[in-house]
């Protein structure tokens, strides 16, 4: 892993929650404006990469939440069940519509689908970091100590 950087670690602690909020914001506004599940998922994926850079692959591998299969599996399941719900309720696979929440807020039903996409994309980034992160770590072990470090 790269040299331990105090600046990166401290900075990531402030940045990570902020980035996560932005990703959720992008996810929520996605139906009518720029954003959506995919771009939101990528932003959340950037948080994963930031965590990897600042705390090393142990942080990712040891996490109970950041695991490839559950994230991708759940995401796909949510997206699929949304499609099937459209088939059951509206007679067409993936059919959409607007849902009015109790507060008078109108939300597109496809937000459910977007949440699924969001989870899949985060899962894919986690999968990449976990696989490639391992390789970098094991290579590092065989390298000799640097004189100027």
């Amino acid at each position, binding site marked *: 892993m790269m040299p331990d950087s105090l600046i990166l670690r401290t900075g990531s602690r402030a940045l990570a929650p902020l980035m996560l909020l932005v990703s959720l914001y992008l996810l929520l506004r996605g139906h009518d404006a720029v954003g959506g599940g995919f771009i939101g998922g990528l932003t959340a994926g950037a948080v994963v990469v930031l965590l990897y850079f600042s705390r090393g692959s142990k942080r990712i591998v040891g996490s109970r939440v950041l695991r490839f*299969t559950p994230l991708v*599996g759940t995401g*796909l399941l949510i997206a699929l069940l949304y499609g099937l719900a*459209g*088939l059951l309720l509206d007679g*067409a*696979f*993936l059919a*959409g519509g607007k849902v009015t929440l109790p507060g008078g807020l109108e939300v597109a039903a496809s937000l459910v689908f977007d949440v699924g996409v969001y989870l899949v994309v985060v899962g894919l980034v986690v999968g990449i970091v976990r696989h490639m992160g391992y390789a970098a770590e094991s290579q590092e072990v065989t390298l000799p100590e640097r004189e100027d470090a």
Partner: protein
Amino acid sequence: MSGLLTAPFWLPLLGAVVALLARRHYHVQQAISLLTLSASVAIGGVLVAETADGAVHATQIGGWPVGIAIPFVADRFAALLITTTALAALLAVVFAMLRGEDHHVQFHPLVGVLVTGVFASFLTADLFNLFVTFEVMLIASYVLLTLRAGRAQERAGAIYIMTNLLASTAFLLGLALLYGRVGTVNLGELHAAAADPGAAVAAGVIAIAIGVKASLVPLHGWLPRAYVCAGPAVTALFSGLLTKVGVYALFRLYSVVYAGEPRWSLLLLVVAGITMLVGVLGAVGKGDMRAILAFHMVSQVGYLVLPLGLWSLAGVTAGIVYLLQYIAVKGALFLAAGTVETVTGTGRLAELGGMLRTRPAVAIGFLLPALALAGVPPTSGFVGKFMLIRASFEGAHYVVGGVAVVVSFFTLMSMMKIWNGVFWGEPSAAVSAEAGTEGDPDRARLPRVVDGIPQPPPVVFTPPRVRALALPSLAVGVATILLGLGAQLLVTLAEPAAAGLLDPSAYLEAVRGR
């Protein structure tokens, strides 16, 4: 109807997702695979019944207006292919379970995703969506090919992935050109679009990209290199599904976008003839069962695209009959080769021999599909080939008809070479020892727990299990004889499909939602 039409898409995908989440439970994964594939066969059968008398059913995904939505359309051709490929996939998965090739948490989910892509490719009537479903299928196949990562697999995987990525890029480029020229990629609006030279070039780029995936000569080099490196069950799975989707897409493209324009006939006939010849000659120099069979796959693609050049009712009917039985036959041959490899631990002809004495069921399970592949009566292969060659001569295409006959002899010779090498004569040392039944030596090295997931115990090749390995190929072998004798059934099923391709007006109306 909407549920039924989309079911071949969401059912296997749902199975894949549940299998992915149930990754700790090996037997649950197996049950899900068997269940979804059997259900897909049944759904395909219902679709075949629903498309009697040339009826075509369509649904617009998401209930969006026609022209915006992705249409999913089932005509007889698509329905027949769904049923057949689902059956082939089912047999390959059963075989994989028997020999323990599915001992990887991602095997069953990937098979689910693969067949999702295959079925959706058959159903979609939107060329961009076809690109997406192709990718779904291919991405799953990339991982399946390299699932047991060894040096050879990695190299084969690299060739396979690079070739297909290049083809996909060309596909996308062609789509962009076509959209730029015509303004739509919806097949309902593209009928006879190729009358415009610009659109013809754009669709030609797409056709070349699909030609790579169908492995037409000269775009075939990747297939014999890549396929032999996968596990035997995966090779059988790929052989039944992947190139066939390419062939299907070529039929659809020629039927709708080119409207069967006869000016391309000569080019198509030449490509078909050369593909037959090059494939069969390539097999001559090979000394490994699956390598020989892989080259024959290339050769057979020539037969499969021959009807495009004929484009008569007799020719296309013959082509569909041939395609349907061929999917099963080729899968069965690879399964038989896989059985030989599993039992003896090798697929090289030089090390084998005399297996007819030690394992007669395996020998018969190879012989019957091999005869069908060569086109020897009374197998279904004979019926398909005879109809195809007769249609060529009726259409006064004597050269390509002659090539088809000659290539059949070469195919028979190749099959006899395998027969002599593997099954005839005195049992060789490898055949007598049956080293493969002692289990995979690699398995002992593998960790018992991967990523916190307990791995299933290694397969113990008990005598009943070894005998069962031969059953899938034997079943197809018997079926080819029965279908050869009762060939009228296949012809009756295929004729409306052929008529629907020659005159796609019912298909087009269904896509346009009228």
